[in-house]
Structure formats: structure tokens, C-alpha cells
């Protein structure tokens, strides 16, 4: 049968530090994304754009429009963070379908790190946009009595963000592995097709929720 989904396999030791499979896959994806973006953005032109530039513009414009609709403000300051988050999550969730690879988001550590990025950047952006005192006063919003609950909800939101991503991606891979060990070679193919859809939906949901949290922190939409 399959091993525990809560542990991560160690690939090699870097001195005393064990390097696990999700770390290797993440660095591989980061290198591939950075290289691909650098190559695709090498020759950008205003007149007569090439096919690669057209696809790139379509992706960036769709992301910008979705973020702007969600946050109900200009998306330009948030596009680098949220756009990178979406592209990375989409590629990372789908990388689990490549034979021999395991989606890095199917391990709790990756999902927790991403949620931590969202939590800290929403605090930082909120403080930078509204000023420290006004931002802190937002926590005591309806009455100061709700201050502990507001602080708690800030933490549980990040927690549930990471558990949601981890649970969905990991359970999909786990079900495929169980079906594969019970039944034949081609039986899990429909499940893998479903996983293709679910990976993209989870990337979308994570990004939209991150946009909602950041929008609540900078004050463009109601704190959810």
C-alpha cells in the first residue's frame, strides 16, 4: 500500500540538512517558471506582437481583471504576488500527474508556507496602505470586545487556507494511489482527469481567498 500522506520522503542529505522531495520539485518548478518567463518576455513589442506575447498578455490581463473584480480596486500593486501565486499553484497542483513526481502542495509544509506568505503580506500591505495605527484600530472594529476574536480569526483563516489546499490536493493523489493499488492500470484515468480540474479549481480558490484577505486588510472590501 501507500505510505503515510503526512510524512515527506527524503531525497538526499545536504550536509546535516535532509532535503525532501517537495523541496526538490518546488525548486525545479521555480527554475522552470523563471526560465520560461524570462524566455517568453525577452522580445516584447508594442507593434506586431508574436504568438507567445499574445498568450502572455491574455494570461496577465485575465488575472488582473479577476483580481480587480474580487478586490474592487486597481489590481496593479497586488498582481505580482497574487498572479505568481496562482501560476505557481496551478503548475504545482498539476505536477502531481507527471509520473514520478508528487505535487509539492500535497505536503502540509508547502501549503503552510504559502498560507504564511499570504498572512504576512496581508498584514504588511494593510499597514503600508492604511498606516500602523489605523490598521491596528481595524481589529477592534465593531467594538473593542471583539478584539480577541478578530485576532483569532486572522490566524484561523491562514490555517484553514493551508489545510484546504493540502487536504484537497493530497486526498486526490491518495485516492488515485489507492485505486491504482486495488484495480488495474487504466482504472484511475477518470480520477486523474477529475484531479486535473480540481487542481486548477484549488489554485483559483486559494488565489481568490488570498485576494479577499488582502483586500480586507487594505480596506477595499469588507473584512471577511
Amino acid at each position, binding site marked *: 500500500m501507500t505510505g*503515510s500522506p*503526512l510524512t515527506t520522503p527524503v531525497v538526499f542529505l545536504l550536509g546535516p540538512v535532509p532535503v525532501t522531495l517537495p523541496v526538490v520539485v518546488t525548486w525545479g518548478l521555480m527554475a522552470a517558471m523563471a526560465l520560461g518567463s524570462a524566455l517568453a518576455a525577452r522580445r516584447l513589442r508594442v507593434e506586431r506582437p508574436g504568438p507567445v506575447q499574445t498568450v502572455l498578455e491574455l494570461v496577465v490581463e485575465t488575472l488582473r481583471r479577476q483580481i480587480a*473584480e474580487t478586490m474592487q480596486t486597481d489590481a496593479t500593486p497586488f498582481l505580482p504576488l497574487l498572479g505568481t501565486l496562482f501560476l505557481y499553484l496551478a503548475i504545482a497542483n498539476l505536477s502531481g500527474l507527471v509520473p514520478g513526481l508528487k505535487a509539492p502542495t500535497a505536503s502540509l509544509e508547502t501549503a503552510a508556507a504559502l498560507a504564511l506568505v499570504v498572512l504576512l503580506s496581508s498584514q504588511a500591505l494593510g499597514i503600508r496602505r492604511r498606516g500602523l495605527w489605523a490598521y491596528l484600530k481595524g481589529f477592534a472594529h465593531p467594538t473593542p470586545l471583539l478584539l480577541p476574536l478578530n485576532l483569532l480569526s486572522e490566524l484561523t483563516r491562514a490555517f*484553514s487556507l493551508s*489545510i484546504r489546499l493540502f*487536504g*484537497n490536493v493530497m486526498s486526490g493523489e491518495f485516492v488515485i494511489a489507492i485505486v491504482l493499488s486495488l484495480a488495474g492500470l487504466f482504472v484511475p484515468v477518470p480520477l486523474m482527469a477529475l484531479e486535473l480540474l480540481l487542481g486548477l479549481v484549488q489554485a483559483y*480558490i486559494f488565489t*481568490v481567498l488570498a485576494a479577499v484577505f488582502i483586500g480586507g486588510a487594505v480596506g477595499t472590501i469588507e473584512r471577511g
Partner: protein
Amino acid sequence: MDVHGISILGAALAVSVGAIGPALAEGRAVAAAMEAIARQPEAANTLSRTLFVGLAMIETMAIYCLVIALLLLFANPFA
């Protein structure tokens, strides 16, 4: 029955009971969204985005139960 048997029972119970509530809630949410889209097809974009976020929120409850079940099966603190 030893701790392992009780843990397996607990895991099955967590997932099966924990799936009922979110399933009912998601059904109601999707039904309401379908009705709203049928009434006002031009608002389908906003509605489906809100629906997705809401479904993710509801689904988290079932995922919590799944994580509890996995903890019981693979990282049991009492076994």
C-alpha cells in the same frame, strides 16, 4: 478492542459523519446559485465566483474531518 481498532473506527466515523453536513450545505448553496443564475443570467460571472469561494469555505469542514481521520490513521498520538 485495542487503540488501533478504535482509531480506525474513529477515522471512518469522522469522515462519514463529517461529510453529511457539508454535502447538505453545498447542495443548498448550489441550488440557490442555480436559481439566481436562471433569474439573472447576466450576473452569472459574479455569482459563480462567489459560489466558488463559498463552496470552498463549506468544503473546508469536510477537509478538516479528513485531516482528523488521517491523523488517527497515520500519526496517532495515542497508539
